[in-house]
């Protein structure tokens, strides 16, 4: 299989052009959840996506994460149009270009912390090389969990699991990091420290980070806040108060 061209030096990581998403198309239950979204995300950006429940945040994130395809409009990831690409190409792009962090950590319990971090690389090319392992250990150190590499996910706390998930999302050095309410399941103090981590890696790795969050305080901390209401972007502005 030939690898799709990925232009890592492109400043624009992601662009949505009049993206619509409808469910149950062609049935009486047809509902459009996203109504013509235009959105661009650039390298090094840390953006928060906020909005009430049912506003379409998760749907939008699924589209951006190539877990789902728009009903109309076009979604460019690293300059590549993706709406009509097949499952194989999307799967490959996910592995190459996107890091995911989910609300419920989603570590694989059968594997150790280190192996969980290595998983995207193992999916990509099989047995991890010594360099891969070194990279993964470095990332674990980065998220402050170097000492927990050989523990099972069930043996560490929720905040720690979320840090592992972040390390895992970063192991492929993705240009785009997506986080779906990464702190939704954590207490305030832990949530704050996880958010700190997003800031740090954003600064350090230069990837575009899009964080879906409910927490207005955390959102206010991001350089850019995108507000979604009823499938429309109602505001998209820079935060003067952010770092």
């Amino acid at each position, binding site marked *: 299989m030939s690898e799709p061209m990925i232009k890592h030096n492109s400043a624009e990581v992601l662009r949505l052009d009049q993206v619509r998403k409808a469910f149950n198309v062609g049935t009486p239950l047809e509902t459009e959840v996203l109504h013509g979204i235009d959105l661009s995300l650039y390298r090094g950006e840390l953006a928060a996506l906020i909005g009430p429940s049912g506003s379409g945040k998760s749907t939008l994130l*699924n589209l951006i*994460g190539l*877990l*789902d395809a728009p009903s109309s409009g076009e979604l460019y990831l690293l300059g590549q149009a993706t709406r009509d690409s097949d*499952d*194989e190409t999307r*799967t*490959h*792009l*996910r*592995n*190459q270009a996107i890091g*995911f962090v*989910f609300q*419920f950590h*989603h570590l*694989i*319990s*059968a*594997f150790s912390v280190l192996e969980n971090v290595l*998983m*995207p690389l*193992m*999916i*990509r*090319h*099989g*047995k991890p090389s010594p360099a891969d392992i070194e990279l993964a250990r470095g990332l674990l150190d980065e998220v402050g969990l170097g000492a927990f590499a050989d523990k099972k996910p069930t043996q560490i706390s929720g905040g720690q699991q979320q840090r592992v998930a972040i390390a*895992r999302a970063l192991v492929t050095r993705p240009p785009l990091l997506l986080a779906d309410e990464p702190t939704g399941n954590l207490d305030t103090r832990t949530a704050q420290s996880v958010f700190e981590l997003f800031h740090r890696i954003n600064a350090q790795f230069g990837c575009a980070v899009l964080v879906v969050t409910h927490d207005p305080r955390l959102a206010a901390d991001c350089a850019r806040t995108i507000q979604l209401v009823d499938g429309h972007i109602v505001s998209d502005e820079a935060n003067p108060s952010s770092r």
Partner: protein
Amino acid sequence: MRLANSLWTEWKIALRFLLDNRMQTLLITFGIAVGSAVIVFITALITGLQANVVERTLGTQAHIRILPPDEVNRILPSDDDSWSLVLESPRAQRLRSIINWQDIRDVLDQDAQILAVSPVISGPAIARRGVARASVALLGIDPPRYQRIIPLANDLIAGRFVVGAGNAVIGKELARDLGLGIGDKLRLDAGEGREAVVDVAGIFELGVRELDARYVYLDLKQAQTLLDLPGGITVIDTTVAEIFEADRIARRLARLTGLRAESWMETNGQLLNALSSQSMTTEMIRVFVGISVAFGIASVLAVSVVQRTREIGILRAMGSPRGQILRVFLLQGGLLGLLGSACGGGVGWGLVQVFNLFGPRLFEIPVDPTLVPLAMLVATITGVLAAAMPARRAARYDPAVAIRYV
């Protein structure tokens, strides 16, 4: 290289999933092991039993007997435009020699499918000792040749295997009936005044009562004299390498010699029928045990796929292709089959050894060395096939939905 390397990941995930669900894995492995043990044991038992029965049956008879054709009435054809009514009484079959039997023997000696050829003359007689009488079958044999058909010397319980020069070898039952021991005299009366007195040189026990009570072995010459067929023989006994080919070979020999050729399969029709019913029963047991094992594997994996929905979703989100997920679950099926059948094969083999050591000891079950590896191979393939449905389901999961599965 790329495939081997990417399979590394599938192996790793499959193994970890199995180890992670230790209880499930253990239970289904136990189930597969029981199934494979039953299959291995029953296969070995029935194969051994059948081999034993066939061996015992063929231990006392030739595989193919070549006999002179029956004598039949020849009826002259009637004229074209007339009818004839025929009242025919079948001919009495007198003892007749096979014509040119030496030539036929030499031809058969050259035949690649035939292992041994032994001309025999046999006919009825009365054995007498004092006032005791018994009806017997006289068998005139060429000892070295006959030994290759029925290794009579092995079945001797007294005396030596010597025929000719007035010596005879008789069965144990006959010896008992007539009160004969080694060296005793036995009078043989073949009718029409042809009589001879022979010394009992050996007593055999074939284990078949009928034969032990009736067979009297002489050399060819003496039997020919008694049965009034100078230089003749009445049957050519043969053995073949492929015993279950005997029917086919017999038909060929019949065409070749123009004589009657009877295979053991023809004369033991009932036995063969019993054997094939037995094989069919075994086959059914194997198939049904196999099916239930397959369903066991499939259901355990189906449950596992549901349990791991979220993990499958996250793997897909991280860029794991559908094929990889498919292979992970196919591998699990194969591994379960292999593991279970390895244990079960060992247990089945052990059961056979226990049966051989402590069982009724009527016969020994030999275990074909390929049986256990073959069972393992079949179980592994069954496992992969059984995993196909759950694996396809796992591979088809929509990652966006699977991730949010609770």
